[in-house]
């Protein structure tokens, strides 16, 4: 028996019209959570169409299994938030199809909304209500009776360390508390699929770790979780499978271990030079022990099994090419080095 996928997309594409010269500033000045459009349209992000339109998503095919902990990894503008906004019915795809929890996101959007929970990038609690009311009213929008909602709200507040803050206006909560409240809210109606859009951005390390525990716990209970992040470590530690997105395209999709195995061999040695690195790349590649060397502007990227043995030779080659070495950075094989080898860019 083939398990029914929780999420399936086919040739999903999203194109935003070319920004006009006089676009109202509210849409570009503030990345909007939930339906965050303009993070995907940041200058230089996404692809550009022939008329200057922004291609945020270019033919995405994904299949996420029920009960899976799935990560969407990529830098800002990769298309992560656009993907989430389409899958949560908050954005319409330009073309292609997406089915979430058995319902089509365009034709049966209300049915999709009933089965999903969404934690936005930036907490957007209802500031006119208390923390407890946020949860109970949210449940009422899903047709849940007041008694059931009240009991569940008490439990969730306790579980998220907010038991004593139930009566507080949400404006009085700290950023971390608000983010936890957003997760509690998303769980109020017991969703089958939970979407979290960069949930740990701006959280202190302790709160982040606590949040990871909660997510692992939810996953253990059979919830399907889709998480976007640009933190490699987060994706690596939590997700069963990771899709790496860049400029609206799917670059790689595998388990963290599988992805790391695909990272180029050896440690990445990144050497920053005082000018264009192109003149030094051939010499660097010839240094004994070097597996591969490539130049990108002032950056020389070299992969080597034993970086300690090649650094002296590399510095010599750079100086021979008339360049001064400004900085040397070592990165062991990881998702980070894979990402750099796939895109030529760093994640953060």
């Amino acid at each position, binding site marked *: 028996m083939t398990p029914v996928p929780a999420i399936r997309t086919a040739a999903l594409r999203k194109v935003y019209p070319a920004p006009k010269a006089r676009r109202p500033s509210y849409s570009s000045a503030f990345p909007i959570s*939930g*339906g965050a459009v303009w993070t995907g349209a940041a200058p230089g992000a996404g692809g550009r169409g022939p008329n200057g339109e922004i291609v945020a998503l270019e033919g995405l095919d994904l299949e996420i299994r029920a009960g899976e902990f799935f990560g969407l990894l990529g830098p800002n503008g990769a298309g992560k938030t656009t993907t989430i906004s389409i899958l*949560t*019915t908050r954005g319409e795809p330009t073309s292609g199809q997406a089915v979430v929890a058995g319902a089509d996101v365009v034709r049966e959007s*209300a049915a999709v*909304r009933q089965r999903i929970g969404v934690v936005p990038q930036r907490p957007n609690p209802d500031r006119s209500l208390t923390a407890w009311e946020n949860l109970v009213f949210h449940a009422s*929008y*899903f*047709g849940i009776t007041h008694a059931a909602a009240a009991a*569940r709200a008490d439990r969730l507040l306790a579980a998220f360390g907010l038991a004593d803050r139930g009566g507080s206006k949400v404006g009085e909560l700290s950023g971390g508390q608000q983010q936890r409240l957003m997760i509690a809210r998303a769980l109020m109606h017991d969703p089958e699929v939970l979407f979290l859009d960069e949930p740990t951005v701006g959280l202190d390390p302790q709160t982040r770790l606590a949040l990871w525990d909660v997510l692992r716990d939810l996953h253990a209970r059979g919830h399907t979780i889709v998480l976007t992040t640009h933190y490699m470590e987060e994706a690596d530690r939590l997700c069963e499978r990771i899709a790496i997105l860049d400029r609206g395209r799917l670059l790689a999709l595998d388990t963290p271990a599988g992805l790391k195995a695909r990272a180029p061999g050896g440690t990445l040695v990144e050497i920053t030079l005082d000018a264009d690195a192109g003149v030094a790349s051939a010499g660097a590649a010839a240094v004994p022990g070097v597996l591969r060397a490539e130049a990108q502007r002032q950056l020389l990227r070299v992969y080597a099994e034993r970086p300690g043995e090649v650094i002296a030779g590399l510095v010599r080659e750079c100086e021979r090419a008339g360049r001064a070495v400004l900085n040397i950075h070592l990165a062991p094989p990881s998702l980070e080095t894979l990402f750099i080898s796939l895109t030529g860019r760093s994640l953060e």
Partner: protein
Amino acid sequence: MTALHLEPLERPARVSEALVFWALLRRDLRVARRELPAVLVRVALQPILFVTVFGALLPRMGFVQRSYGAALLPGILAISLAMSSIQSVALPMVADFGWTREIEDRLLAPVPISLVALEKVIFGVVQGTIAALFVLPIARLIMGPIAGLTVAHAGEVLTVTILGAASFSLLGLLIGTAISPQQIGLMFSVIIAPMIFFGCAYYPWKGLAVAPALQYAVLVNPLVYVSEGMRGALTPALPHMGLPVVMLALAVICALCWYFGFRAFVRRAMS
């Protein structure tokens, strides 16, 4: 944080739209009740100041005829209900779409998005109606006896009130989806102020015969019909438009704002 102990929830297989609508309305009523004193001050203070000066003080000083109060009162009610309805819909919406995105949790409710807009409009009607009913006795108290004021046509007063509140709530929906937070100040000086001064609130429409071009130009202003309708229902002895004309005009305004307002809302709500 402690471990989660959550039982699976009994969820209705299909959520009743009426139930969700009621939940949305309850949320707005809860917030309004909490902010009631501030809401009432916002709704009533300006009309009270206005009737104090123009309905009570100036007539006693002899600068204005005493009969002016009868022309003024229906207009003041019209302004109160119009401002209350338009603000209760437009102001939170501008903030929601422009910056806070607080409405997002309601847009994620398992119902059509337009139901969220409909609830906002109905709530605006409730607020506008309450505003008019709240200001009427206060204004009457300040101004003293008003010649020709009658509550014999209470049904007509209520009909004009509700239809007027609906027009301005729907107008608020249109404005709330069209402008950005930075433009709110501009909205008051460019849209609201001319609407009030050329809304036949301070004088009957017939009086504008002194400036015929203006008399016809103001017919695009929805406030004209609410003011004239209030006059027809509360002080029928004064010159006023026929109630059928008023009702028809308000119905047309409702239909237009409904069509464009809901489209704009859905467009703004989707990214």
